[in-house]
């Protein structure tokens, strides 16, 4: 039967809920059917109500006073009293009064009054009687240990004038402090078990008192109680302070008593119920000679059941009125049951005798309740059951927008949730209008420790203070303790699973998240925990990293301060960044140094960004990655623009030639090239649009273009048109560069001008005109008298660091090194003999060839028939590190010349001179034909820029130095070519 009854209640709730939902107004269209239902509890009024109503009609607590309800409630429970129709709400509560209230809470008021009377019977009449009414109360509280016996003695001391609080006396007539009130209330209601009261053993880790700025001024003996009352929301501070020593007013006490809520009601055997007035029935009856008026008030309590309160007023024949009434607070005023009306939302207190002692009609304002979403099975009917923190269950009706019965979803925090995917929480804040839930917000569980989150503004290391923005955007500062633990993941760490591990497992040795305050930067997100002194004890740091991608416009080195680089972005804005010396720089996935950065490099910059204040952003560069080939200029071409294919995004050029060391080569009749979407177009020094080019530049002037590669295809990176006469200058060093594009070359005193339209290529990167520097080795194409169409800057080639030795192996340490008896070193064209033993290191990168066969470095051994001892090698080494060992012939002759043509593996050289071994000079090989063909020997070594390279590196225009066995002059005279074994590429 019980289940059935439950259902009945629900049905009626649904009905009312639906109606409520449609109308949004509680009172309208009210359609309750409570009278048909079974009554769960029958209650009555109380004969005490009438006198209490008279006592609490205080003149100085007007209707609508902020504490009116609390005072009415406390009055209805006979916890407080006033005098002369006044409550004096702003007066302080004296200690005597407060202890009196405690005794009332304990229900021992009568006993105390008896005791007072007994004491006063023998009292010296000369002593002030101001608080003597409370002597019995104080005696009881002294016996209970709320106050000390010395306090009691002070309280009854005849001459109160010689007592003073400064001397530690207990002045019963003075106002009770908030700390004292907290203590007494806790003790009265045994809110905290006496065995945990000890402030020396109480666990303050999760104490609420540290939320207050003035927690330090709470005396030790009160801290436990203040903490408890805080946690129960009974007594809280304001403006971030608790004000422990402030005296409490009478109105505040009333409020405090109300806040005790079930902590007191349970203690006093009162039941607090919530619900609304479902219906009211009136009945008048003649009984003997009395008129009895019965009022039956039907409360629909929140569990869906019906409670009926029976109040009566009877008038006998001589006009005496007897009332069995209740105290009702409604709309800011106090009255009797007659004030109740249908649909009033109420909470009511019932004593053990089934008497309703107090009814509060709640304002129809929105009420927020923190509760558990207990049962959602009735969501289809728009109902949920919530479980309040005091353990009561309430079935409420959802406002219709809050749920969807079709897909069984509920709206929480403005987001739709499936019933099986609700937020991870027990508690929600339900905003109620009556028993209609109008909003549900996430509440979460209680916090087990205090943690504060913020975004760092600055860190003051010397003062151990951190300034951060809290969640409201205010700047807050906190000090850290000497035991501060900082957990910050370095930017290169990808794992996120250590962190707190070593806090749990102390023996865990390496924690890559352990850090120090110095590592905290502006913009970091921090989580702080505090010690008992309110200082930061532990600090977790999250970063605010970002990546920028751009091209280096300029670099200035500033020694130990690092350097500053200007980066330009795709949108043509640029920015200066300071780079600290310790910043890691990577190129092609390998670590390198800042000095590798070149103007024109494309880089990705990893930074940590902090917004310190509006318009003030602070960034720290953490790492720079130099990107590889993508934007490199692979070729510089010239031609005549024939047309632009709008649909394929291609340009068609005629008479296209490529710039090589020797000049323009590689003629192509028609060439189609894709246009990069960021391609820059210039006519002379003027930037123009693609449309301008299409309209005016087809067939007009010479088009110079820098070509790059994208996804294996040639694309134009910069296209520049010029209409003057072209002059090609020989490769030369820049002797002077003004920094604005104006420069001079060593070979003449003329000043040349590179403008915005000039294609300046520096080490294969497209750079601005400012990128020309002294003593760059530049190839210049002039168009006009001084204007440069192209400035192509190449790295100067040196081969001095690579040592070439010829030696016989004396001994070796496998995989590590070998020793030679003595050696000759090749200096220019001559071998210089040194009668010294010398060690060379070998490793897996050392290439070893013998008889044209590759020998793995681990097969370079000194035993078996493959023993290397006494073998002769030519050794190519940088320092002591052998790069290459090859048993090439002993070459001591050679020629040099410039490549004018490459045919297969043959290099055709011009301007050839031959080394005269005897005279130690270079000499002409012929007076009319100074060309010679060079064929590679077997084996052959090509050297460029201190590196062993492939034959493919040789381009037309390169200057070669070829070492071989024959004399160049003799070979020329016999019309032979020259076979080279060591070929240096020297531009």
């Amino acid at each position, binding site marked *: 039967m019980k289940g059935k009854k439950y259902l009945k209640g629900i*049905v009626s709730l*649904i*009905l009312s809920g*639906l109606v409520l939902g*449609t109308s949004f107004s509680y009172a309208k269209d009210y359609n309750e*059917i409570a009278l*048909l239902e079974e009554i769960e509890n029958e209650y009555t009024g109380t004969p005490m109500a009438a006198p209490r109503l008279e006592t609490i009609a205080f003149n100085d607590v007007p209707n609508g006073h902020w504490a009116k309800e609390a005072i009415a409630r406390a009055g209805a429970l006979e916890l407080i009293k006033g005098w002369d129709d006044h409550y004096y709400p702003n007066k302080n509560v004296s200690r005597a009064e407060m202890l009196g209230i405690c005794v009332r809470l304990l229900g021992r008021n009568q006993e105390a009054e008896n005791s007072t009377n007994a004491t006063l019977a023998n009292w010296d009449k000369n002593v002030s009687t101001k608080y003597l009414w409370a002597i019995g109360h104080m005696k009881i509280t002294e016996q209970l240990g709320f106050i000390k016996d010395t306090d009691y003695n002070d309280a009854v001391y005849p001459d109160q004038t010689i007592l003073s609080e400064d001397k530690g006396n207990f002045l019963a007539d003075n106002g009770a402090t908030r700390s004292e009130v907290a203590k007494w209330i806790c003790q009265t209601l045994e809110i905290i078990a006496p065995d945990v009261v000890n402030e020396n053993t109480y666990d303050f880790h999760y104490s609420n008192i540290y939320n207050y700025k003035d927690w330090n001024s709470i005396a030790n003996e009160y801290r436990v109680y203040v903490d408890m009352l805080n946690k129960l929301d009974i007594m809280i501070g304001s403006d971030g302070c608790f004000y422990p020593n402030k005296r409490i007013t009478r109105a505040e006490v009333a409020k405090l008593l109300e806040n005790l809520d079930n902590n007191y009601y349970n203690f006093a055997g009162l039941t607090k119920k919530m619900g609304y007035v479902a219906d009211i029935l009136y009945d008048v009856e003649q009984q003997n000679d009395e008129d009895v008026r019965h009022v039956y008030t039907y409360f629909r309590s929140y569990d869906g059941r019906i409670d009926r309160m029976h109040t009566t007023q009877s008038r006998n024949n001589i006009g005496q009125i007897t009332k069995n009434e209740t105290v009702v607070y409604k709309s800011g005023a106090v009255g009797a049951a007659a004030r109740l009306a249908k649909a009033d939302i109420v909470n009511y207190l019932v004593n053990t005798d089934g008497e309703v002692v107090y009814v509060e009609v709640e304002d129809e304002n929105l009420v927020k309740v923190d509760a558990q979403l207990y049962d959602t099975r009735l969501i289809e009917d728009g109902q949920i059951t919530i479980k309040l923190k005091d353990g009561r269950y309430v079935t409420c009706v959802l406002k219709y*927008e809050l749920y*969807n019965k*079709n*897909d069984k*979803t509920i*709206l929480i925090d*403005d*987001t*739709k949730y499936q019933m099986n995917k609700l937020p991870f929480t027990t508690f929600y804040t339900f905003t109620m209008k009556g028993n209609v839930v109008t909003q549900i917000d996430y509440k979460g569980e209680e916090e087990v420790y205090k943690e504060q*989150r913020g*975004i760092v503004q600055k860190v003051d290391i010397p003062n151990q203070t951190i300034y951060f*923005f*809290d*969640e409201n*955007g205010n700047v807050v500062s906190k000090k850290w303790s000497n035991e501060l633990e900082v957990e910050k993941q370095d930017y290169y760490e990808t794992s996120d699973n250590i962190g707190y591990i070593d806090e749990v497992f102390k023996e865990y040795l390496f924690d890559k998240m352990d850090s120090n305050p110095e590592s905290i930067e502006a*913009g970091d*997100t921090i989580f702080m925990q505090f010690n008992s002194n309110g200082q930061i004890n532990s600090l977790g740091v999250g970063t*605010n990293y*970002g990546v920028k*991608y751009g091209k280096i416009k300029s670099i200035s080195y500033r020694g130990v301060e690092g350097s500053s680089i200007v980066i330009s*972005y*795709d*949108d043509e804005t640029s920015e200066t960044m300071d780079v600290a010396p310790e910043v890691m720089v*990577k*190129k*092609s996935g390998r670590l390198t140094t800042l000095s590798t950065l070149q103007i024109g490099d*494309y880089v990705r910059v990893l930074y940590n960004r902090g*917004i310190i*204040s*509006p*318009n*003030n*952003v602070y960034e720290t560069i953490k790492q720079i*990655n*130099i*990107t*590889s080939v*993508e*934007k490199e200029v692979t070729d510089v071409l010239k031609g005549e623009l024939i047309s632009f294919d*709008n*649909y*394929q*995004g291609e340009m068609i050029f005629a008479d296209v030639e490529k710039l090589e060391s020797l000049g323009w080569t590689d003629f192509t009749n028609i060439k189609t090239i894709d246009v990069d979407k960021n391609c820059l177009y210039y006519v002379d020094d003027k930037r123009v649009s693609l449309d301008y080019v299409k309209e005016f530049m087809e067939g007009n002037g010479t088009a110079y273009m820098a070509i790059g*590669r*994208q*996804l*294996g*295809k040639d694309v134009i990176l910069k296209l520049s048109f010029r209409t003057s006469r072209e002059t090609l200058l020989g490769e030369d060093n820049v002797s002077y560069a003004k920094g604005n594009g104006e420069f001079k070359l060593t070979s003449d005193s003329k000043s040349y001008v590179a403008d915005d339209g000039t294609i300046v290529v520096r080490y294969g990167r497209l750079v601005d005109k400012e990128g020309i520097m002294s003593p760059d080795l530049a190839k210049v194409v002039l168009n006009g008298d001084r204007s440069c169409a192209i400035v192509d800057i190449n790295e100067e080639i040196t081969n001095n660091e690579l040592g070439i030795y010829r030696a016989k192996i004396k001994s070796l340490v496998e995989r590590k090194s070998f020793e030679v008896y003595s050696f000759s070193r090749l200096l220019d064209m001559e071998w210089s003999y040194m009668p010294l033993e010398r060690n060379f290191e070998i490793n897996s990168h050392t290439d070893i060839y013998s008889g044209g066969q*590759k020998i*793995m470095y681990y097969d370079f051994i000194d035993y078996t028939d493959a023993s290397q001892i006494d073998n002769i090698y030519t050794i190519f080494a940088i320092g002591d590190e052998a790069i290459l060992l090859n048993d090439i012939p002993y070459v001591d002759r050679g020629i040099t010349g410039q490549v004018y043509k490459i045919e297969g593996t043959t290099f055709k050289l011009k301007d050839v001179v031959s080394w005269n071994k005897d005279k130690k000079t270079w000499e002409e090989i012929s007076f009319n034909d100074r060309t010679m063909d060079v064929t590679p020997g077997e084996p052959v070594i090509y050297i460029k820029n201190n590196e062993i390279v*492939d*034959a*493919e590196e040789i381009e037309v225009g390169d200057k070669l130095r070829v070492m071989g066995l024959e004399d160049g002059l003799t070979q020329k005279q016999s019309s032979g070519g020259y076979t080279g074994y060591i070929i240096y590429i020297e531009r």
Partner: protein
Amino acid sequence: MVKVKNQRLILLKIFCLVFLVILNALIFNTQSYARAGEMFYFGGVTEGSKLEKNIDKIVGTKSNGTTTHSYKEVVLVDGSVKIAEGTMTIKDGTPATWQDSGSYTIAYTITPDETSEVLLDRQITLNVKYKKVDNQITKDCTINKWTETITIGAEVYTLNAAKSTLNLPTIEWIAPAITYNKVVISNELVYDGLSSRVIVTHTGQSFGYNTTYSSVETCNIDAKVESFAMNEGKIADKASWSMIVNLEPSVTMNKTLTYDTNTPYAISFDGNYLEVIKNAGGLYYTITKDKENSTLKKSELKGEYSLPTFNQTEILIAPKNIDMWKGNFAEDDIRKLFSMEVLEGDTKYYVPNQGITRSQFIRLMVKALGYDAYDGKTEMAIYEDVPSSHVNYPYVVKAYEIGLIKGVGHGHFNPDEILTRQEAFVIYTRALALSNKAAYKTSITPFIDNDKIADWAKREIVALYNLGLVKGDAGYVKPTAKLSKAEGAALVNRLIDYLREGIEPEYVENLINYD
């Protein structure tokens, strides 16, 4: 009791009549899904496909889920870098709409070109299981069938399917304007040759995205190759040779807008926009560690090749009466939106200096992102103040479905209020799902008028700032300024441009070069 029940029933009926039925099911757009995996994950590459033309959306295309592409792959089994050329046919069973979970099959067939120096013959059928959690889809695949032979001259390598493993877990993140995807690649391919067993291990990642205007897929794979001598069925313990090669294939597909003028002067319209539809594939390889005794020259340690295609074009309509915006700073933007039919109808009603309302802006965004308006078959009441009779109702419902706008507790959308800049920024960030580019609960922005920015817009504005998409005007972001129709059009067109060409470099150029 009986009486109670009846009352309840009557009221329930009223309930149904009075209240509109709210339908759930965030039906994600499915227009651009089947793209990920077009080159598969073995370090090969296709040229991709052309993005769908606008006209195809209206008239429809015959598609049976099968596509054919040219295909190139770096073959390493013989210890050298060789290019296998052929065709890849994909039979894609990807469902049209995602359920909460499910599975489908996808089959890849590679047929070698006769001219190819390496003959690669491969058939893989995968069973893909997926699961959808909110706006994310995770996928896992198992092999249904896998046969493969690689023929290099006389040597034939046959895939040992029993010993080989594919591991390609995938995640897709669906935002209103874009779907991001990532594949973790961890494969072991075992080939048996005539006298050796070659084990190729792939480790890497693939990143990609799909939008209506562009689609990109980029892989970065480290391939480790080890060859073990095989003698009378016995396989040597130690590799006879080994090498590591880095493979970076990428496929890009996009549509760009270009203006096409008309030569005869006497034509009723001045010119019109064309959408140029491009796609291309390319691959870079780098031999990170060459095999023992290799005779490769330095210049041979790196290489690249591409699969370019010929562009297609689609002609867009030429809006009429365009002179009314002539000279306006947003002239081009408005004109483009009319050409793309994001804006429709009589041009004279798009008055540039009038305010744009919240629902009008949503309408532009929904259309710009390529969604159809909500079909209205079932009445959906999401906002109290956007009834089905509201002119922009189908777009607001669609915007809600795709997550561009959120439900608000009080059920109000304020559809007819003029849009403010901060509202536009929030919608913008949400379209790209990039709000995580700023710290959680950011309370301060770099702009001088920080205090004027609503709390709900701060994080999004910082995210756009971090991405360089909002720079501010002399330090001010003017969050509460109202947007005009001209500014609204400029904003929407800027997003389209970003989707056409703005994100691609981040995925292709920047990612490939990100060492």
